[in-house]
């Protein structure tokens, strides 16, 4: 990337609020910002409505009736799994906001089913329908959408963040949006593993936020692996609750399971294939399953396998932080980062406040995306309006453009770098079963890779996007493993073979950040450090 602010862009826009990413978090952010009267531009790397983890899939949603008893049970259910790093205040707010947002979706026309008791059932959203509706709502609210327009860099000045720039991949043109506030809602990082809908999610938002001075947190909780048939990208896992897992010879793999037994599956996969069959589903369930998640059955139907009666080979596909809980650190309930004018929401932000160190599946992430998006949109709009006329006089510059450029990268170079990152994050032996030795070696290789990728320059716009993805994935892997090394215990989804138990003395969240030099600190210490810097 060059210095995008000083070179004129092909497309130049100004807005009160710029939203980066058009999944659930970004579309809710755009809607709520517009409802405050702000002018809003939303850019998406893909297409707002089909892109990201939700659109081709669908989500269970943490929608809980507002009775004391049900809310208490809901909050309690995951606290232990998450290693007690979640926060009840945040959980309560997310439950409230999700409840009202889901009801708002019903008013907006989402066709919720009616259950066997005659009640509208609001705990599940089918992705294509949900995101088609959100796009329509965002457009109706007057938001300007730029599809196929990845953000590659934030713009900043002494007042904080003031916009972003990127390219339009259809034409190769550059774009710049100057804005009073920016919301990063670009999703998590699944390292191009082709998990359903996830190949647009390469950690770009983490990198541009870190370049502007934001920190991340919970990055050790970044090793989600989802079950999928080996031939298929469909990583929907809920129905494997009713699966039995088998060796090739048809004997049952003891201890293998979807919820608790994924490590057993991983261990077995290291030496031999694993097969599954949904043979614990009753006859009734089979038809419910089809109506609940048509996309789960798509690949089976097309290949001609009946998953209820026939064995099929399965694998574990890396979903990284998408179904992990790490992301950009937030400093308050408005979803602000420590950098003025910069907000984060959805998978791009840390989800530890409601999940602690574990999500895996089921409803929290979707609830977080719509709640955090709504708060970020509202707060960003208010912030942008308070800047008033001062905004016009700002000339923010590219926050990542200090880098020295050493060499022109070919498409082949970028492919090789991407493959190199994947070799560090995909193997179970490094990322799932973690040890001091393997993590340290991997960090060494990743640091070397970072020194190469960060100085590279792409010859054209479309290569610039892929290069930026390679840089973002390399940086993400380094924050992940630096945090994983710092947490010398097992907690949530973070498993250390050399420290198999939880350690009460490490009952804190970890912050991380930095580009050339990576730092990791327990939350309170790091927060006070930021306060000192700002005063």
């Amino acid at each position, binding site marked *: 990337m060059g210095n995008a602010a000083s070179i004129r862009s092909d497309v130049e826009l100004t807005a009160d609020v710029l939203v980066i990413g058009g999944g659930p978090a970004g579309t809710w952010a755009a809607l709520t910002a517009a409802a405050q009267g702000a002018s809003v531009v939303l850019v998406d*790397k*893909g*297409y707002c*409505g*089909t*892109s*990201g983890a939700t*659109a*081709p899939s669908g989500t*269970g949603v943490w929608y809980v009736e507002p009775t004391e008893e049900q809310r208490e049970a809901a909050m309690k259910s995951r606290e232990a799994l998450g290693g007690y790093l979640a926060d009840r205040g945040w959980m309560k707010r997310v439950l409230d906001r999700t409840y009202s947002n889901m009801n708002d979706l019903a008013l907006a026309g989402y*066709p*919720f*089913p009616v*259950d*066997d008791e005659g009640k509208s*059932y609001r*705990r*599940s*959203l*089918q992705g*294509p*329908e*949900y995101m088609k509706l959100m796009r329509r709502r965002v457009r109706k609210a007057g938001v300007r959408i730029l*599809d*196929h327009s990845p953000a590659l860099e934030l713009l900043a000045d002494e007042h904080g963040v003031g916009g972003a720039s990127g390219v339009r*991949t*259809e034409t190769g043109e550059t774009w710049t949006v100057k804005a009073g506030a920016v919301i990063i809602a670009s999703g998590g990082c699944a390292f191009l593993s*082709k998990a*359903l*809908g*996830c*190949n*647009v999610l390469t950690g770009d938002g983490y990198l541009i936020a870190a370049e502007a001075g934001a920190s991340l947190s919970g990055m050790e909780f970044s090793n989600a692996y989802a079950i999928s048939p080996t*031939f*298929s*990208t*469909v990583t929907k896992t*809920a*129905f494997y*609750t*009713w699966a039995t897992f088998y060796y090739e010879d048809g004997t049952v793999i003891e201890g293998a*399971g979807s*919820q*608790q037994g994924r490590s057993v599956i991983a261990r077995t996969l290291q030496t031999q294939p694993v097969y599954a069959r949904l043979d614990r589903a009753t006859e*009734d*369930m089979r*038809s*419910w*399953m089809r*109506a*609940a*998640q*048509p*996309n789960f059955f*798509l*690949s*089976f*139907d*097309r*290949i001609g396998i009946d998953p209820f009666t026939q064995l099929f080979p399965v694998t574990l596909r890396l979903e990284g932080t998408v179904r992990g809980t790490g992301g950009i650190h937030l400093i308050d309930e408005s979803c602000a980062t420590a950098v003025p004018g910069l907000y984060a929401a959805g998978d791009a932000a840390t989800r530890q406040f409601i999940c602690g160190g574990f999500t895996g599946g089921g409803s929290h992430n979707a609830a977080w995306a719509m709640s955090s998006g709504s708060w970020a949109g509202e707060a960003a709009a208010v912030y942008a309006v308070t800047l008033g006329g001062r905004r016009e006089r700002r000339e923010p510059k590219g926050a990542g453009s200090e880098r020295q450029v050493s060499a022109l990268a070919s498409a082949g170079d970028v492919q090789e770098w991407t493959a190199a990152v994947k070799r560090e994050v995909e193997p179970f032996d490094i990322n799932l079963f973690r040890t001091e030795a393997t993590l340290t070696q991997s960090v060494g290789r990743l640091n070397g890779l970072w020194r190469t990728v960060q100085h590279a320059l792409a010859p054209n716009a479309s290569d610039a996007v892929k290069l930026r993805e390679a840089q973002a994935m390399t940086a993400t892997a380094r924050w992940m493993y630096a945090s994983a090394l710092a947490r010398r215990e097992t907690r949530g989804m973070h498993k250390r073979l050399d420290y198999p138990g939880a350690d009460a003395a490490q009952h804190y969240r970890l912050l991380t950040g930095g580009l050339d030099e990576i730092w990791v600190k327990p939350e309170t210490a790091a927060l006070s450090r930021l306060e000192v810097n700002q005063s």
Partner: protein
Amino acid sequence: MIELVSNTRCISCGQCVSVCPTRVFDESPSGVPVIARQDDCQTCFMCELYCPVDALYVSPHDHPIDAPGETALAESGILGSYREQIGWGKGRSPGAANDTSYLMFKAMQRTPGH
């Protein structure tokens, strides 16, 4: 991965070019889009849902295959099958309204270990 753009069915509406998140298609002079970057296909099936005339076929495999031809796909009822299941298209109603997740959710609560 995306394997077919049927030039007999395609009405050149350009939807697939727009909605594909990873920009796999390019417009072409004939009006029928071409699969320009199959390697970038993430097998998300979204283009199929947005094609108004069921002219696209996404194979379930995450790598290129020797896919069946258009006639075979049409005869086996695969072309357009996903769009029909979702309930998109003229005269259909959204499948989301028949989402039976609530029954699965109840079953899940009864499942030990959950």
